[in-house]
Each structure stands twice: as C-alpha cells, then as structure tokens.
C-alpha cells in the first residue's frame, strides 16, 4: 500500500483513480441518480447478491473470527523487541506486511468478489468459498 501511494507520484497521499474499474463504477452509479416514475427494469446480475452478502458477512461470527485471527497474527513484539511506535512506521509495517494475513482484505474479497481492481491483488481463495461461488455466478 505504501508503495502504491508512492508510485502515484505527483501530489502525495491522496489517491485519484480514474473511475473505470467496475468497483468504482458501481460505487458511483448503482442505486444512485433520480428515480423516475417509469417502467424501470433493472436486472443486476450478481450485484444485488453481493450487496446483500456484505451486510450478512459483516455481522457474522466468521467476521469476528477473522478479526481475531488478524489481531493474533500481528507481529507486535516478536521482531527484536520493536515497540508499537516503530511498528507503526512505514518500514516496520512493510516488514510485517508480507507475513500477516489480512482479515479485512479477506472479508472484502468475500464481499466484493475481488472486483476492486485498484486494490492490491491479494487473493485469499481458501477463505472465500461461499463468495467465490457467487462471484462465478456474477460473471
């Protein structure tokens, strides 16, 4: 992530993706805009499923377990007694990055089906079995 920020160059920390990825497009237009009293016919293959999915996943025990897992995998003290302040620095975080499995990324993967193509391509196939099924349905 840090690397991504740097590679964007120019003006610093703020990311300005061009909204061409499906995730951005959905973000911007889905369920947005004026609802007209018309014959509205929308068949959003897969997308509604994913939205519903998100609410379920967030509240589930599975989510809590993933949070617990990620918290437990944090490498707070093991690296030669680094304290938290050091860990928060970019360098230490990069070191920890490689070995820490991301609960949040994993959950996000389950929710979005990995369509967020501007994110770093961390895939977690083992944990997203139910969403993987939906993902293939939506494609």
């Amino acid at each position, binding site marked *: 992530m840090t690397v991504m920020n740097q590679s964007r160059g120019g003006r610093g920390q*703020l990311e300005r993706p061009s909204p061409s990825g499906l995730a951005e*497009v959905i973000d911007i237009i889905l369920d947005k*805009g004026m609802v007209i009293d*018309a014959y509205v016919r929308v068949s959003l293959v897969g997308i509604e499923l994913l939205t519903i999915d998100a609410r379920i996943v967030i509240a589930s025990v599975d989510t*809590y377990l993933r949070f617990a*897992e990620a918290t437990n995998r944090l490498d707070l003290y093991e690296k030669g007694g680094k304290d938290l302040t050091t860990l928060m620095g970019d360098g230490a975080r990069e070191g920890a990055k490689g070995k820490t499995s991301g609960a949040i990324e994993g959950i996000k993967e389950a929710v979005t089906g990995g369509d967020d193509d501007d994110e770093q391509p961390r895939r977690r196939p083992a944990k997203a079995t139910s969403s993987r099924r939906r993902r293939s349905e939506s494609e």
Partner: protein
Amino acid sequence: MTVTHQQRAGGGVPSAGQASYVYAIVPAATELVPDLAGLDDQPVGLIRHGSVGAIVGSVPSGRPLGRRNDLIAHMRVVDVMATQGPTVPVRFGSVLTDAAEVESDLLAPNTSYFSDVLAYVAGRRQFIVRGRYDEETVLAEIVSERRDIAELRDRTRELPDDVGLAEKVHLGELVSHALDAKRADDARAVLERLRPHAVDWNTRASADVDDLIHVSLLVDDHDRDTFEEAAEAAATALAGRARLRLLGPSAAYDFVPDV
C-alpha cells in the same frame, strides 16, 4: 407527436421492438456531444420539452440490464454530459416505452421540477471520498490502546485453530467494536476538513469492514481547488493509517431527489 420528436431527437430514438433508455435530464438548450455512445455502443439522443430535455438511447425491449459494460456506458454518458452543463443523472436501468412517452410521461409533467433541480446542480459537481484503513496499523493501534484486547490476544494467539473458539469470537467482537469507535472519530475528522468546501454532503453506508469513510460531496466549481486541497490534507493526516481515495468530479448522482 411521436414523429415530431423522433425527428428532433435524431439518434437514439427507438424503433419497433426498442425501448427508450433514459440517462439523464438536461436543459433543452444542451448540445449533444458528437459520437457519444451509450448502451450497446448505440448513439444517444436528446428529447426536448419546454426548457428541459432527456438524454435517451435505444435498447431492445426486454433486454436485461446490469452487465459491466452497461454500467460503464451509463456512467460515461452521464458524466460526459455533466462536463457540458447541468445534468441530473437518472437511475441506472430506467426505461420507457418510446420517445413519445419520455416526453408525455417524464418531461411534460415535471418540467418546472426538473428546471429547479437542474438549477441546483448547475456549476456543481460531485466527488466521492472513500477512506480505507490499513489493517495492520489500525489493529495494532487497537491492541495498544485496549488492555482487555491485548490480554485476550495474548491468551488466544498461541491456541490451535479449533481451541478457544468462544474467546476468539469475543476477541474479534471487541476488535470489531473498537474499530467502529475509531471509524466514527476518524470519519468525523475527515468530514470536518471537507465540509467547509462543499455545498452538501451525504455519507454512504459502507459495506466493507475496512471502510473509514464513504461520503459524497457536492462541490461548487469555484471551490474545487480548495476542496481538493482539503482532501489532500485529510489524506496526509491519515497517512500510514488509512488511504484516502477521491473519485470525481462526476455528475451529482447523490444529490438529486426522486420524482
């Protein structure tokens, strides 16, 4: 009537077996952008009534909508029109029977209302700001700030996967709630930076667990520079803990009331 408006509208007017897909409401005086392609790469047209008009295209009747390319085409048309002038996005997937119905059922009954909404969005564009936490950093913060969580973590971290499940769920629940509290604080801080430069704003319900903030803001064109500077400052303030992403300018998707 139908004939008149089909002539006036030019491209994008449906023929038999076709329906009228409505992209946006614009002022009647709007110039169409040459070669602007909509759904199925079909040209878009403009149907006018009084001071307002509808950007429409042709889709086969009964065609399901919602594929990736459909969404992208919809957004492309709306956002290109928004670069031309006031544009009220119509919700994705809105279809009327034909051009005559677009005029008689959509434009005619709502002319003055559409004029008001167009006036409201004139000279304004929408931005979306989305913040996402850096997972490891924010979890480390939580562990360091919360002794109960740190202790529970110490107790459960060496346990095998299938042992101490209840405690692990409890740990996760505590962490999840701590993250909610952190999110509320951080989101408020971001919003306080951005709000002074926006006409209006809507926070969006966030679906992803690592969301820090997801807000759309309506920004006057003449405030755009200061708004973007404020967004940059907010991103800098969060650097290392979260990433802030700015989408836009786009049409005012989140700031148009329903008919």
